[in-house]
C-alpha cells in the first residue's frame, strides 16, 4: 500500500492557527444494521467490544474502535487500527445478516478543534448547540459546519473532532482557520 498523504497540503496546514489541525487519516468504517436485532449487536460486540449506542448522538468505545451514532441503523466506527481487517472481521461475524459494512476511511477528513476558542469557533460555524449543558465529551452530532455537512464529536472539555467529506475539507479547514483568526488580534 502506498503512503497516503493527508488531504490538506502542508503549505495550507501550516497556516492553521493554534487550536486547529488536520488529523492523520484514521480507519473509519460505516456500519449499518438493525440495533433491535441482538444477533447483530451481539456479533458487533463480540468482534469489536463495542455495545453499539442506540441513543442518538452518543458514542461508545470498544477495544480498538469507537462507534459514533449516525442514524437509527448506522454507526461510524473509528479507530487507530486497520480498516480492512475490521471490515473483514465484521463481514465474517455478520455474514447472512442484512447489514452493510463499508470502509470509508478516505471518505471523510478529520479536523481537531481545541482550546479556549473552540466553542466560539463552533458557534460561528454551526447552528447546533454545543453548550456544555447540552453537549459533552462522548457526544457526537451530524450537522452543518458552515455549509458543509459534518460529524462533530466532542473528545475533551474543549476539544472536538470534525469529520467532513474530503472534497469539502479545504473549504472547512479554511473556514475554521478564519473563524479562529479573530482571537489572535490584540483587543
Amino acid at each position: 500500500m502506498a503512503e497516503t498523504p493527508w488531504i490538506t497540503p502542508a503549505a495550507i496546514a501550516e497556516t492553521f492557527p493554534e487550536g486547529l489541525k488536520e488529523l492523520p487519516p484514521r480507519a473509519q468504517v460505516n456500519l449499518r444494521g438493525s440495533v433491535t436485532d441482538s444477533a447483530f449487536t451481539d456479533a458487533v460486540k463480540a468482534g469489536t467490544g463495542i455495545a453499539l449506542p442506540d441513543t442518538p448522538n452518543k458514542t461508545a468505545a470498544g477495544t480498538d474502535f469507537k462507534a459514533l451514532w449516525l442514524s437509527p441503523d448506522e454507526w461510524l466506527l473509528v479507530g487507530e487500527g486497520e480498516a480492512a481487517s475490521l471490515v473483514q472481521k465484521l463481514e465474517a461475524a455478520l455474514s447472512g445478516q442484512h447489514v452493510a459494512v463499508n470502509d470509508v476511511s478516505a471518505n471523510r477528513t478529520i479536523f481537531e478543534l481545541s482550546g479556549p476558542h473552540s466553542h466560539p469557533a463552533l458557534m460561528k460555524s454551526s447552528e447546533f448547540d454545543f453548550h456544555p449543558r447540552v453537549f459533552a465529551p462522548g457526544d457526537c452530532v451530524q450537522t452543518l459546519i458552515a455549509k458543509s455537512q459534518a460529524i462533530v464529536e466532542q473528545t475533551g472539555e474543549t476539544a472536538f473532532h470534525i469529520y467532513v467529506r474530503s472534497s469539502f475539507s479545504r473549504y472547512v479547514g479554511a473556514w475554521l482557520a478564519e473563524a479562529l483568526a479573530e482571537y489572535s488580534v490584540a483587543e
Partner: protein
Amino acid sequence: MLNIDCPWCGKRHETEFRYGGEAHIARPEDPAKLDDAEWAEFLFMRTNTKGYFAERWLHSHGCRRWFNVIRHTVTHEIVGSYKMGEKPPKLPKSAGGAK
C-alpha cells in the same frame, strides 16, 4: 427559521432539512391500472392545506431519515413529528389562526 423536531435527533434548525411536500401520498400499487386523470392526480394534485398540514421532511444533514411533521401553514406552529408508518399526533382543537 423553523425549529424542526427530528423524531431521532431532536430539534434542529430548518437548514439541516430538506422539504418533501405533502405527506401520505402513496405511490399507486399498480400505476398501469390508472387512467391519465388518476395518474395526474397522484403526480401533480396537492391538498395545499391552509391550516394544520401533514408534510414530509428529510433530515438530510443529520440522520438522513424521512419523517412526517404536522405544521400549521399560517402560524408555522409545529404540533409534532412522527416516523414513517406511525400515526399522526392529535391536532389541537383551535384552528390556530387558520382561514
